[in-house]
């Protein structure tokens, strides 16, 4: 059970139906459900794509690619069937937003996937939900069955002559499967090892057919965009960054939770007003602003806008919208170590820079944190991480390297404080011999 919170600065679009019982189809219909897909059928493929382009919607999974443009890359004519794939493999540490969508508004994902399918001329949409989210998969299974029972999915939807099937699919525990080509491999019943690109999924995707892959939040936003019009949605956000998104606020905040804020909202306000500031009267030491894969920011760097472009200008990324706040009692070396241990565990081992890089970084940071570091380790850690950048099949290698580079760059003094066999200055959190060791 995911908890709901609210703040006056929120602009509720995708979260509009949260807490309203919209998992029930009748309730969803009362709340404008399945109106957008009917409008989409009238608009036709080009009309939908134009609205999406006008909305300035950028993918909510993390990369921030313009959704309308992504859909326009799918060839109109294709010898092979085309597919829509909803990425509900939410597993970026710091991110827990899709859970709320699946729990409170599963039909919006179905409807969004249907609109995407109409836009690209596909007749089959798959909704992939991570294995750990079994209760959400069950909610989705029921929602799909209910939609079929009313004739909203299947043959001749809404009397349009258009056939559209929607299927559920479940994962079984793998972060990397959140990467789009690995997601397709997983859906095809294989190990989630990424595919080399080009060809891109829009041309050669699932079972060789052109495929559109969108994050669950992106698709859940689509019906709202179609109903209100792309232009109006764009106006909620800022230039080139339309609309709102769900931010998962976590870590040492007084009021952690998932909040829907317009793009361009201030990071400082997100932390100190929406999130209630740092708990227990402590100070902010660092913030990881877009899920565990992005470089951290120092407290003096948080006067920036939460949109894809401003964050990139500040040397980090908006990513998945997971904002992790770290207080002044936390050891950054320990935090970096735990971050890299995650990527080491999740690396599929397919390409060497990622497989070896995450392992070496993990070993180096573990030794370093335990007091076994020497001065040149600090540069070596950074050098190792920098040599992973851009040298792997999929972005997991970059995702592992970027935060580590950020920690070394921005908190070098914390690394230096561990030198010469000195114990960790934050010993109460991290006596080296008491650290539980990841054995998997």
């Amino acid at each position, binding site marked *: 059970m*995911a908890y709901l919170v609210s703040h006056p600065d929120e602009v509720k679009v995708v979260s509009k139906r949260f807490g309203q019982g919209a998992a029930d189809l009748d309730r969803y219909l009362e709340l404008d459900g399945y109106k957008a897909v009917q409008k989409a059928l009238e608009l036709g493929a080009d009309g939908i794509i134009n609205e999406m382009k006008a909305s300035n919607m950028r993918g909510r999974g993390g990369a921030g690619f313009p959704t309308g443009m992504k859909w326009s890359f799918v060839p109109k004519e294709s010898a092979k069937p085309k597919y829509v794939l909803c990425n509900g493999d939410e597993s970026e540490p710091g991110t*827990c937003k899709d859970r709320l969508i699946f729990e409170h508004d599963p039909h919006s994902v179905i409807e969004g996937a249907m609109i995407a399918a109409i836009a690209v001329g596909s007749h089959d949409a798959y909704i992939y939900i991570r294995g750990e989210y079994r209760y959400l998969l069950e909610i989705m299974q029921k929602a799909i069955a209910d939609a079929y029972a009313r004739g909203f999915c299947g043959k001749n939807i809404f009397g349009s002559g258009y056939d559209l099937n929607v299927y559920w699919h479940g994962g079984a525990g793998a972060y990397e499967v959140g990467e789009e080509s690995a997601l397709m491999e997983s859906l095809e*019943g294989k190990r989630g090892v990424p595919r080399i690109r080009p060809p891109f999924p829009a041309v050669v995707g699932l079972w060789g057919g052109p495929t559109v892959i969108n994050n669950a939040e992106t698709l859940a936003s689509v019906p709202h965009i179609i109903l209100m019009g792309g232009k109006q949605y764009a106006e909620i956000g800022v230039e080139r960054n339309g609309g709102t998104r769900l931010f998962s606020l976590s870590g040492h905040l007084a009021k952690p939770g998932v909040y829907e804020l317009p793009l361009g909202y201030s990071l400082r306000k997100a932390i100190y007003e929406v999130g209630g500031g740092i708990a227990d009267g402590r100070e902010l030491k660092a913030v990881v602003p877009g899920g565990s894969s992005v470089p951290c920011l120092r407290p003096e760097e948080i006067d920036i806008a939460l949109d894809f472009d401003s964050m990139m200008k500040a040397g980090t990324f908006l990513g998945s919208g997971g904002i992790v706040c770290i207080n002044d009692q936390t050891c950054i070396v320990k935090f970096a170590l*735990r971050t890299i241990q995650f990527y080491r565990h999740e690396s599929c081992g397919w390409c060497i820079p990622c497989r070896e890089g995450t392992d070496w970084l993990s070993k180096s940071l573990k030794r370093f944190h335990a007091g076994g570091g020497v001065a040149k380790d600090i540069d070596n850690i950074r050098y190792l991480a920098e040599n992973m950048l851009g040298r792997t099949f999929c972005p997991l290698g970059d995702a592992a390297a970027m935060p580590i580079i950020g920690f070394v760059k921005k908190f070098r003094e914390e690394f230096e404080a561990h030198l010469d066999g000195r114990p960790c200055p934050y010993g109460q959190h991290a006596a080296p011999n008491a650290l*539980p060791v990841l054995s998997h």
Partner: protein
Amino acid sequence: MKFSEQLEARYSDMITHYPAKRSLLVPFLLYIQDEFGYVTDDSIEEVARRLEITPLEVRNVISYYSMLRVKPGGKYNVQVCTNICCLLRGGEEMLAHARNKLGVAVNKGITPDGVFSVEEVECIGACSWAPAMQVNYDFHENLTPEKIDQILDEYRQKAAQQ
């Protein structure tokens, strides 16, 4: 080997979802695990036969996904997250507490009565409600040591009643 009626129904439904039947493999293996407690050798052979792939290919897939196991776990698998957001809010202490309480020192170790196993897991998507754990598929969030005691006691009682 025989699957339960429920599992057969699941199979017949899922096989209609895809243009290539192998595609049902990952979610179906998890349903097999739910039925038998783990993915048994027999069921690997059976799935391979049905999907017309080799048992080795099935094992190759199993080894990739962290939720799938080929050995029994506890009836209730306690999965404590220690990833960054849980770490900041005491995830490691929660893991240590669960292990100490159940007397299960080793990762994935099982209590002698077979009721519990404890596993340290990566992010389960409960970051805003950390620290968190899953017992089988059930989420338990905003944990404290006292809350863990209470939750585990409830599962123990549930196991005793069955």
